[in-house]
Structure formats: structure tokens, C-alpha cells
């Protein structure tokens, strides 16, 4: 009985310490960042390759934080999480960062006890149609120019009146879909199918004219499942906001700052034209903004509680945001779109690093 009490007491002490300790201290002490990623694997965001190494845009964020904290992007351990587990894993301290294509909403930011540090991918619901699409309700085009005109026929989701739409049930996707059609005075026939492979089979075999889900899902399904990817187009309309971003626990502002500015550093570097290839030579540049960024002048790193070369290490080892995007998402057929820099018509905008 005495031993039991001793063990209990020891446990309480350990727990007490863990509570008082900041995440940064805990991370430094254990020597790695514990990163929660998508256990179901989403190609381009977080998925193990044939060698079992995690790759993707969400993975790069964790690598960036490790580079900032340790100067070594490989000091990351990954925990595969399902949609149900992800928030508990962060709250209970199982992971230090949740970087698992999670949509930033006010409910999650407040009542779930998360803090989203920013957005690393602007997603939203879109539509995919065969390039030679013609809605069943619509008037058939003149026979003469059927071939040429039909192929370039559809350019907008506003032309989808009367279409049969494949959609997965129980998601906001289904609600957004009917809202959009009602708002535009159009009708549609839903074909509701539970699992992704089956809904894709239905679409590619021609059971429906349109497939709708988040644009990222459309792009990767087209790249991976379409018999001929070039025969399907994704319409320009994006009908919902799905800003995906990494999150940390409430109540540890220092760690929040570190993860937030690691993300911003990758975006800022792209804007400044710094990349993993040229950062070594740029480090000697006279430009004061670059000098601040690489830590040659000022003490930005110290303000974060990190080494002054934190941003240099991120760019050197992980690359800037554009490089990550091009490595992981471009081969799947993603265009930059909303995820381009604000200077190039997108939404990626980092506050100044100074």
C-alpha cells in the first residue's frame, strides 16, 4: 500500500511538472516535434511514400517548425490521426502540432480549445465535369458543330441546370450544393453515394454528369482515378470556404507564435524570392530585409525564443511555400489559384518579419 501511494505521489509530481512546462520546453527536452498528420493519407498533403517517409504540404509545416526549433527538419515524429481523434490528440498533449488538412472554423477555434495559426491551403467546394459535358435537361447543341462546340461548351457552373450530381452524404458538401443551385435558380438530381471510391466509379462510368467535393479532392481524384484525366475539367466556381491550416493548443502563446511564424516565414521567403537553392548566396546580400530574415542582423529569432538563424534553417532545409507546393501538389495537377501570393492574385499574405 505504501508503495502504491509513493507511485501515485510520483505520478502527480510528474503530471504537475508537465502541466507547468511550456510546449517549447517540453519539445526541446524530448528532442523532437510530435506532429499529428492524416492517418488515412491524403496525397500531396500528408502521405507516406513507398519508403514509408511522410511527404506533403502539411508534413512540410512540421518540418519547418523542427528546422526553426532544432535547426534540423528531420527531428519530427508523426502520429497518424483520424478525423475523430485529431482534436483529442492535440488537447491531451499526444501531439504538439495538428497539421492535418483541418478546416478553420470559429467553433474549433474557440470551444474545442484549438488555436489555428494560419492557413496553408485555401480549399473550397468545386465541380468537376467531363470536358464534353452537356446537361440532360439542356437543349442539344446544333448537330453541325457538335464536336468542336461541345468540347469547349462548358465554362461555368451556372450552366449546370438539370445536371445529375454525384455527392457524398452527410457532409456540408451536400448542403452547399443544394444552396448553390437554389440561389442560382437551377435544378439538379443528386446521386448520393457513401464512400469515395464508389462515388468516383459512379462519376467516371457516366452515372452522373457532375462530381462535387472540395477542389483539392477533385484535383487528386482526377489525377489518380480518371481513365483519361485530360477529359475532365474543374469549373472555376468555388462555392464554399474551406481554409485548411495547422493548429496548436490553447493557452501556450509562445508555441503558438513559433508555429505561426514558421508558416509565415515560408510564405514571406517566397515573396522575397528566397528559396532553398539561393538562400546560401542571398545570406550575404546587402538588402536589410534579407539580412533580418536570415538572422544576420537584428534578433528576431531571440524574440521567438529560438536561434537567430531559425528562418534561414527553414528555407534551407524545407524550402519556401512555393517550393513545397510545387514539389507536392503541382505533380497532382494543382494550380496555385487562391494559394498564390497576394502579389500574384492569390491570398497568401504574411505579415512583415521585422
Amino acid at each position, binding site marked *: 500500500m505504501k508503495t502504491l501511494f509513493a507511485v501515485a505521489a510520483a*505520478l502527480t509530481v*510528474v503530471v504537475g511538472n508537465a*502541466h507547468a512546462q511550456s510546449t517549447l520546453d517540453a519539445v526541446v527536452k524530448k528532442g523532437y516535434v510530435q506532429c499529428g498528420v492524416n492517418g488515412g493519407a491524403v496525397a500531396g498533403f500528408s502521405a507516406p511514400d513507398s*519508403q*514509408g517517409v511522410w511527404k506533403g504540404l502539411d508534413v512540410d509545416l512540421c518540418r519547418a517548425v523542427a528546422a526553426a526549433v532544432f535547426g534540423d527538419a528531420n527531428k519530427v*515524429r508523426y502520429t497518424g490521426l483520424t478525423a475523430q481523434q485529431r482534436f483529442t490528440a492535440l488537447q491531451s498533449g499526444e501531439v504538439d502540432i495538428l497539421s492535418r488538412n483541418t478546416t478553420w472554423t470559429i467553433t474549433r477555434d474557440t470551444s474545442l480549445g484549438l488555436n489555428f495559426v494560419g492557413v496553408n491551403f485555401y480549399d473550397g467546394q468545386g465541380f468537376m465535369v467531363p470536358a464534353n459535358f452537356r446537361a440532360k435537361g439542356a437543349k442539344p447543341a446544333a448537330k453541325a458543330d457538335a464536336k468542336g462546340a461541345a468540347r469547349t461548351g462548358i465554362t461555368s457552373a451556372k450552366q449546370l441546370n438539370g445536371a445529375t450530381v454525384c455527392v457524398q452524404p452527410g457532409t456540408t458538401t451536400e448542403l452547399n450544393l443544394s444552396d448553390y443551385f437554389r440561389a442560382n435558380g437551377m435544378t439538379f438530381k443528386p446521386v448520393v453515394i457513401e464512400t469515395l*471510391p464508389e462515388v468516383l466509379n459512379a462519376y467516371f462510368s457516366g452515372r452522373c454528369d457532375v462530381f462535387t467535393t472540395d477542389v483539392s479532392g477533385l484535383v487528386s481524384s482526377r489525377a*489518380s482515378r480518371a481513365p483519361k484525366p485530360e477529359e475532365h475539367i474543374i469549373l472555376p466556381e468555388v462555392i464554399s470556404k474551406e481554409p485548411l491550416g495547422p493548429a496548436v493548443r490553447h493557452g501556450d502563446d509562445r508555441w503558438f507564435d513559433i508555429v505561426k511564424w514558421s508558416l509565415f516565414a515560408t510564405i514571406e521567403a517566397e515573396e522575397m524570392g528566397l528559396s532553398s537553392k539561393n538562400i546560401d548566396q542571398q545570406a550575404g546580400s546587402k538588402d536589410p530585409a534579407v539580412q533580418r530574415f536570415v538572422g544576420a542582423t537584428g534578433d528576431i529569432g531571440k524574440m521567438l525564443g529560438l536561434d537567430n538563424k531559425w528562418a534561414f534553417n527553414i528555407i534551407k532545409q524545407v524550402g519556401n511555400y512555393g517550393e513545397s507546393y510545387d514539389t507536392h501538389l503541382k505533380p497532382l495537377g494543382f494550380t496555385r489559384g487562391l494559394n498564390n501570393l497576394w502579389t500574384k492574385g492569390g491570398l497568401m499574405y504574411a505579415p512583415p518579419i521585422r
Partner: protein
Amino acid sequence: MNAIAGWLRANLFSSWPSALATLVIAWLAWRLVPPFVDWAFVEAVWRSPNSDACREAQGACWAFIGEKHRFMLFGTYPFEQHWRPALATLILVGLWGFSALRRSWHWWLGLVWTVGLALIAMLMWGGVFGLRYVENERWGGLILTLILASFGMAFAFPLSILLALGRRSRLPVLRAACVAYIELIRGVPLISVLFMASVMLPLFLPSGLTIDKLLRAQLALVLFAAAYLAEVVRGGLQAIPHHQYEAAEALGLSFAQRTLHVILPQALRLSIAPLVNTFIGLFKDTSLVLIIGLFDLLSTIKVSLQDPAWSRFGIEAYLFACLVYFAFCYAMSAYSRHLEHGGPGRRMRQS
């Protein structure tokens, strides 16, 4: 020639229904087998550095298995260290095979297992003898399935015997507790037990104290399997005639002696078939851990399919999974048949 015709008549065409069944099955085989052979072997692509050759082909794409088999079998374990889980898998399978032999049923079998498990732990975790430390979040694939199933069976079985005995006990509180446990666990699906272990449990623990995810899943599997096995064992206990209990009591044996030497050997012998049935079920149930983000064999196969270059080759991937699961499950059922026909207590059944 006559002999063949006679055999055909006796075995395949002895009556109208039998002849009809023969013809239907022959027709089905003729319709199904050649296309399958064509797809799986003749038209199949065996080598393809990227998936281009596969996309052109009409047949199966075995190049996909070639590309991804290391990930499927070993998950995210460090690539250059894959010999370690491979060796651990062999040791674990070897341990089971060795324990199946009657010759090795001695007290030292426990010692063999202790050494074997220590070796496996050393190989998998490392950190000694110059082996790099590998945290168990990176374990995956076949070895994870085998570990979950092996420890699941090894711990659930003794627990289930205690539960079954408890349920038949004369002490009301003990009996009620065992009944409550068995009914509660049997009343919920395994998925919800796994969710409890992986999502709810961490919330009840004080912050900063976390129990390893693998351990939580293992615990859930043990608790779940024990409830089912307990009912199987209880079935065996009920089949023992009452005079066996009375005779043992009349000999002046204590409760422990009665149970260990008279009742259990007979009861377990009787329940071999349903026990193995439950074990096979447990082996396949381990694949449910994919819903809590562990990379067992089936989840690594699913994850391999997420690679856009290869994601259309689901049939090949799942056939591969079928083969692996079938090999293990068939070995278990073949062994149970062997035990039933030649194990201890055979005489009792004959008399």
C-alpha cells in the same frame, strides 16, 4: 476407360440433382477461371518503374505490389532498417510454429517465449547493441497485425478462463461482476471499444500523461476478445457431465486441483473448434485499428492506394491482403483440426 466412366457416374452424375450441380459448377468454372487466369497472369504487368505500363495493360498490375510491398509489410518503419521487423516477424511466426509441436509442450516453452519476445522487442525498439531506436509509432504492416493478434490471444485467453470460471462461481458478487463485464463488452461493437480507448481515455487522464496509442489499442483488443472467449470456455465447462465434478470432489481434490486437472483439460479440449473460430475472428478484427490511425497490414495497403500513381489498382492490393490473411487463418484452422483429431482427451470422446 470404363473405370473413369464408372467413377464419373458414381461421383458426379449419380442422380439428376447431382448431374445438374456438376454441370452448373463446370459452366461457372469455365466462365470464371479462364478470364481470371488471363487477367492475373497472361495479361498482367509484372514490372513497371512507374505506373504507365500498368495503365495501358488489360491485366493485373503486380508491379504495384512490387513497388509498394515494403511499405505494405513494414509501414513507416525506417526503410534501411526493414530487416529488423522482417526478422521479428519470422521469430514470432517461428515461436507459434514451435509451440504447436507436441514435443515442445514442456515447462521450458515459457522460457523460449520469454527469450523470443525479448528478441522481438529488442529488434523492434532497438536502442541497444548499436541498433537505432525506433519509436513504436513507426511500427506498421504485418508485424503490427501479428503483434496485436498474438498478444491479444495470449492475454485474452487466460483472462477468459478466469471470467468463465467466475461466471459459474458460487460467490454471488464475483459471478455478478463477471456477468456484467461479459455482457457489457459483448453488447458493444469492437469499434466503439477502440474509440473509447483511443479518444475518450486520454481525456480522463491528467494532461501531460499519455498512454501509448498502440498499448491502448492492444488493451481494447484483449478486453474485447476475453469477453467472447469467456463464453466459448463456459460452453465447454457446461458440457462436462456433473459426475465429473462430483467424482473429483469425492477424491478430496481442492478447487484448484479439480479445475486444473479434471475440469479444464476436458472443457478446453471440447471447445477447440469454437476457440479457434474466435481466434481467427480476433486476427481479422485487428484490422479495425485502422480507424484509430494505427498502420496495420490493411491500413498500409489502403494508404498505398492513396498514391495517385497507383490508386486504381485496388483489386491487386486487396488480393495481396487476402493472400496474407488467408495464409495465417488457414494455418490456424488446419492446426485446430489436427488438434481435434489427435489431442489429449481423445479417449474420453470415444468412450
